[in-house]
């Protein structure tokens, strides 16, 4: 079996422009296996833009991003068919990601989604949708987690669950980038205040 290189995420000298306004500049992040960073800062400071740049979905105005390892993203867009029952919508991604059935069932149980599998996605509550997106992320088995406001709409029990999942992911050698204005607790979590790079 081929050795999988340890995941890492390195961003150097990133700048992001929205219209004719530079949101941030000279931003650098270095994450190795098992590390996590929380992006903090006021609304509109560019947390989501940074996440999309790190994901490779948006091009930075300046600077570069180096990724080693597969990427998983949870943002405000679910990527689950609204008309389909939850089980079917998640099943689509499970087939694409070749998720193991037993592992998927365990994840669903952990996230409290087992009773909701027959419910069409559009009838789920905000928190339930968020948990469904997390199930999709876990099933993907990506090394680098990019979480954009993962705690939005979650109750305190679910927030603690997300923190446990992120902790377990880091303990397993994965890495996490969390954009959230809410407090987030993972052992060894670094904080990156976007205000320091704002223009």
């Amino acid at each position, binding site marked *: 079996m081929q050795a999988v290189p340890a995941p890492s995420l390195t961003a150097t000298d990133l700048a992001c422009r929205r219209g004719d306004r530079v949101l941030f500049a000279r931003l650098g992040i270095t994450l190795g296996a098992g590390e996590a960073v929380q992006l903090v800062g006021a609304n509109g400071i560019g947390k989501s833009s940074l996440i999309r740049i790190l994901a490779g979905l948006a091009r930075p105005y300046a600077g570069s991003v180096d990724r080693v390892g597969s990427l998983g993203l949870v943002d405000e867009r679910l990527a689950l*068919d609204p008309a389909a029952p939850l089980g079917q919508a998640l099943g689509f991604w499970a087939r*694409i990601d070749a998720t193991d059935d037993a592992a998927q069932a365990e994840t669903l149980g952990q996230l409290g989604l087992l009773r909701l599998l027959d419910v069409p996605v559009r009838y789920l509550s905000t928190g339930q949708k968020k948990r469904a997106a997390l199930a999709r992320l876990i099933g993907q088995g990506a090394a680098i987690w990019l979480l954009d406001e993962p705690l939005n709409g979650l109750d305190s029990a679910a927030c603690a669950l997300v923190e446990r999942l992120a902790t377990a992911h880091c303990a397993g050698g994965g890495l996490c980038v969390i954009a959230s204005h809410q407090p987030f607790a993972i052992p060894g979590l670094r904080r990156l205040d976007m205000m320091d790079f704002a223009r």
Partner: protein
Amino acid sequence: MIRALRNILWRDLLLLLRGGGSGGGVALPILFFLAVAMIFPFAVGPDSRLLARIGGGVIWVAALLAAILPLDRLIDPDRDLGMFDQWALRGIAEEWVIAMRVAAHWLSFAPALMLATLPAGAMLGLNGHKLGLVELGLLAGTPGLAAVGVTVAAITAGLKGGAALAGLLVIPLCVPILIFGAGALAIGGESGLALTAAVSLVLLALAPFAGAAALRAGR
């Protein structure tokens, strides 16, 4: 990769056939197609010789108009859902995703359209030979229509009033297919069909690259 593409194609196809959450599905454009073919005799009168002469062209125009109807469901809903982002993260090239969508759009649309052409042709009084030419022309031309439809839908995705703009963009791009496809009826031969197929193939070859570029630019 192949497994992922097979799953994407299957999902696209079911979504386009059933209409998914946005309603519609393939029944609406087909009924629209039949309605256009049906109102034509009312407008130009029941002269069966005239109808038989222009009937083939009417079917082509109706097919083109019907192809415009599902445009806003081709790309926009999945863009809003973030599906394209998730596929991109998994390293599935946008070109493949668009190619699958063109295939799904064609599969969901063309066979039903060709089936509906039989009653439409009967309403317009086409004889068997002409009907055969129309069907062969549609077989050759609809892949091109599907390619143009998906490309334009990708270009206009996320725009306000994108659906109306998409319709306006599709019509000029489909003119070559219409000229050769409907022209095959006038000159009554294989050359028209061959040219229709040729235009279709060119559009099919371009669509994944143009559509993928549009998707990336629209992020």
